[in-house]
């Protein structure tokens, strides 16, 4: 048995949700798809493969004032801005949902938990939307998930022609269901076609032996040393924190994305840089994902979304790298 709802009922329900929550959903901007806050369901794109950027921004904002210090007549006033209201993210793909689990391992499960991330995670309900099929660059099945995996969302939707199958996964999901009109029907949601072949992924322990292999130098020849792959990645999570004086002489403590691909990333006081070459920096990205992160925090820091493959201007292809590593 499964529960289904019509598209009309779904959109009416989303319209209602948008009044009580900040509704974040896929939106088309200049031929690309981005998760953006929407005021009504008519702004939402339902027919899309994958958003150009993941939802990382809503949990680890690219720029975030974590503390502001205001000068007053006497003394100072310190304020830690907190998130306003509750949020619902609609039409999250399973890979992007799994990416949040990967980030949880560091930001929630390690002591101390990151309070800013925790707050955003706590106050956000995730509505998943199963992929119809695997995209050209997708390789989620190689990383132990599937394009219709419901395990990382609160509510899961699957398209069935003009209707949607609705699966309640968590209490949080149940709580937002409200008066969504559901009809019980026989059967189970259709499964997307899964790609047979899986990428060979080297165990974390096997990576260190290849650290000095010339493979990395040849791969890095064409790397432009930009930050693109890390910023479009749903699991890259590095940030920098700096204090700035504002024009009216108050102080803001800012947290913003940073990238291990950037030359400045490892630069330390006095100007010394222990990771000065782009070979070292590009190699680090792969070691972080498949060796350091799993060793330190558990999960592999890649969900197979393929954004870095699709977006890299010079065809640094993570699948090719994984295949290359397996035969070194």
């Amino acid at each position, binding site marked *: 048995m499964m529960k289904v709802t019509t598209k009309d009922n779904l959109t009416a329900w989303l319209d209602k949700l948008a009044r009580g929550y900040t509704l974040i959903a896929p939106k088309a901007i200049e031929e690309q798809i981005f998760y953006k806050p929407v005021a009504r369901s008519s702004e939402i794109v339902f027919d899309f493969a994958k958003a*150009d950027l993941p939802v990382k921004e809503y949990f680890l904002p690219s720029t975030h004032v974590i503390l502001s210090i205001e000068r007053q007549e006497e003394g100072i006033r310190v304020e830690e801005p907190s998130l306003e209201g509750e949020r619902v993210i609609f039409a999250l793909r399973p890979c992007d949902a799994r990416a949040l689990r990967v980030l949880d391992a560091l930001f929630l499960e390690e002591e101390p938990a990151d309070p800013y991330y925790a707050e955003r995670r706590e106050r956000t309900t995730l509505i998943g939307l199963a992929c119809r099929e695997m995209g050209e660059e997708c390789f989620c099945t190689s990383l132990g998930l599937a394009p219709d995996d419901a395990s990382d969302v609160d509510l899961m939707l699957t398209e069935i022609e003009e209707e949607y199958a609705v699966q309640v996964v968590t209490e949080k999901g149940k709580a937002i269901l409200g008066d969504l009109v559901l009809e019980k029907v026989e059967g189970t949601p259709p499964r997307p076609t899964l790609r047979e072949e899986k990428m060979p992924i080297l165990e974390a322990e096997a990576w260190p032996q290849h650290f000095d292999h010339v493979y990395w130098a040849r791969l890095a020849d064409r790397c432009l040393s930009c930050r693109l792959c890390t910023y479009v990645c749903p699991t890259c999570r590095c940030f920098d924190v700096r204090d*700035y004086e504002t024009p009216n002489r108050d102080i803001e403590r800012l947290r913003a*994305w*940073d990238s291990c691909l950037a030359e400045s990333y490892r630069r330390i006081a006095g100007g010394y840089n222990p990771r000065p070459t782009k070979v070292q920096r590009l190699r680090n990205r792969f070691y972080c994902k498949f060796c350091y992160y799993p060793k330190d925090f558990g999960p592999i820091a890649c969900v197979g979304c393929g954004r870095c493959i699709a977006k890299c201007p010079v065809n640094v*292809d993570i699948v090719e790298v994984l295949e290359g590593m397996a035969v070194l």
Partner: protein
Amino acid sequence: MIDKIQAKAKELLERGQVSCFIGYEEGTRRKVRPAFIYEPQDVDRLIWDERCTYNLAVYLHQFKSPLKRGEEPPRVGILVKPCDSRSLNVLFHEEQIERKRVYIVGLTCEGVKVNGQLQERCQRCSERVPLVYDLLVGEEPNEVGQENYADVARLEGMSPGERLAFWVREFERCIRCYACRQACPACYCFECVAEQLDPLWMGIAIDLPQKQFFHVMRAYHLAGRCSGCNACEEACPTGIPLSLLNRKIAKEVEALFGYRTGQDAETPPPLATFKKEEELPL
């Protein structure tokens, strides 16, 4: 054409005239990518077709220092299209790399395609033969395009408010990944203004003011130095039409100074020149 390119690359590598030959190769997923050939037996990896959009001149910067300590910087071979050759002239003029350290295989060009579409810049390109080369490969095409700056004129036709709204809408999508800057042969500062700590021009925030400042600043720094290769725009993950900014400035520089980027390696670009007697028709 490819036979000639491969044969030349092989000869250069075999004779030790270059340490590396930079060209194009077949990548994954039917994409083309930059290739770095170090051994003569690898030259058959080289390809040349309409998908070869990259401006390879950007990679010359990584050959500026010696491969091994104490040695001379390496000599490299490079494949260039007419547009890319103008970037080379900029780098030669700015003394980024010595002319004698680069063996240039110039390609005549009928335009390159992205996703099967002839690029707009190629439709209006009037230069089909590289301006600097050691070996020229290919026949000069009969048909050439003509620059009309129609896209820039569209922006100029907007009111300042409309234009600001246009750019705000575009820049909002910027994620400050610097792919545009890194793909640009003319952006080679050791420390970019955008990341400089002392003096601090802009912080680490990825907000609209920083994005606007960065892109406008970059466009100004490219005045008279941008070859119009479009590498920045193609690298952008969020599809910002960066070439419009550069083209607007190129148009102004051409009108004010009668100067086009990289026509030769000798004429200094206007913004790197000061003539006491010069009066601008402003």
